[in-house]
């Protein structure tokens, strides 16, 4: 009696699981590289915006550096650090990708910091803010430039928020502060551009 019930119930469930898992694995293998490509393309596009002069971006994979950056950034998560090189190959700045708390959810930002530690550009990779309200941080052309040229987390903190989108703009501000703190923690361009 014991194994009868296990087999009677087990076989159909097992068959369905196997077919489902195989099907999904196959779909995944088709779309995996496509998704990967999309993510890389989005990243490169944002980095290009924040550091226009750079030709290519070399991701930093050294765990020590990433660890220091992460610690400095506090409760903002550092998603990636890239060394930006110009045509001649010499590093001209660092691109930092962070995820900070917005109103509707996490906001993924890209911040470019040039050789002497000044913010070269800020852009929003993706966010979940409410259209029409939170999205003001993107629509309002004057907001992001306010961070350009700042070189310390304290300076970034003084930038005031937009009315009607306080939380979203506070999210962006926290992102920039974290990026600057991380930049200092990893010792600026020199500390990172190990050839």
């Amino acid at each position, binding site marked *: 009696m014991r194994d009868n019930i296990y087999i009677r119930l087990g076989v159909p469930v097992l068959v369905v*699981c196997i077919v*489902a*898992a195989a099907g*999904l*694995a196959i*779909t*995944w293998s088709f779309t*995996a590289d496509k998704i990967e490509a999309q993510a890389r393309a989005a990243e490169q596009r944002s980095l290009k915006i924040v550091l226009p002069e750079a030709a290519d971006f070399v991701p930093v994979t050294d765990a020590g550096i990433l660890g220091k950056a992460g610690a400095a950034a506090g*409760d*903002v*998560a550092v998603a990636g650090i890239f060394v930006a090189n110009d045509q001649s190959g010499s590093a001209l700045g660092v691109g930092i990708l962070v*995820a*900070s*708390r*917005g109103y*509707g*959810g*996490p906001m993924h930002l890209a911040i470019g910091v040039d050789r002497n530690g000044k913010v070269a550009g800020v852009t929003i990779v993706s966010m*979940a803010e409410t259209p029409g309200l939170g999205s003001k941080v993107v629509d309002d052309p004057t907001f992001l430039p306010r961070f350009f040229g700042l070189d310390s987390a304290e300076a970034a903190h003084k930038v005031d928020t937009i009315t009607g989108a306080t*939380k979203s703009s506070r999210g962006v501000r926290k992102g920039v502060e974290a990026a600057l703190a991380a930049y200092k923690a990893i010792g600026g361009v020199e500390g990172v551009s190990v050839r």
Partner: protein
Amino acid sequence: MSAVTQLALLLVGAALVNNILLTRFIALCSFFGISDNMHTTIGMSLAVIFVMMMASTATWIAYYGMLKPLGVGEFLYIPAFILVIAALVQFVEMYLRKYSPALYRAMGIYLPLITTNCAVLAAATEAVKPGFFKMNMVYNFTLGETLIYTLGVSVGYGFALLSFTALRERLDLAPVPRSLRGTPMAFIAAGLLSIGYIGLGSLFGL
């Protein structure tokens, strides 16, 4: 901030500010379905708290124990999680019926409802894929944080349900225009209630 305030903020955030029902719109089917009398709501809220805690633990273990090491977590997490939740709900239902009929009578009939409850899957997935459900997290949860977070979400669910049921019972007696009577009035009341819950956000400065 210290770890304790971090966890407390997480709990309050999940329960009130990012209340799963009224500010993030998840699990509305049960919200409007069973909120017409207080007795059923209490039973349902208890069942949801109980099942959600167990489900989140099970899914956390399944994800970090098996899916992530095998590297299949990225595309297999939906069927895996929902399978675990469905099995867990059915098992709990049978267990309760055998060992505590009193508890089963109070809570049992709602258990099948919970399998199709979006909140359980949302909380379970959020713990392992941060920020996925627009929650304000940017880092992966440890098991302890998952339990605290799920406790917050389920208590928030119960809280929203109770406050809405009280409102609805009162609405049935109020002089409401004929075409608005019943569900439409409930929706409008829910709209106003959700404005209240969103207002809580600025209270804690989250």
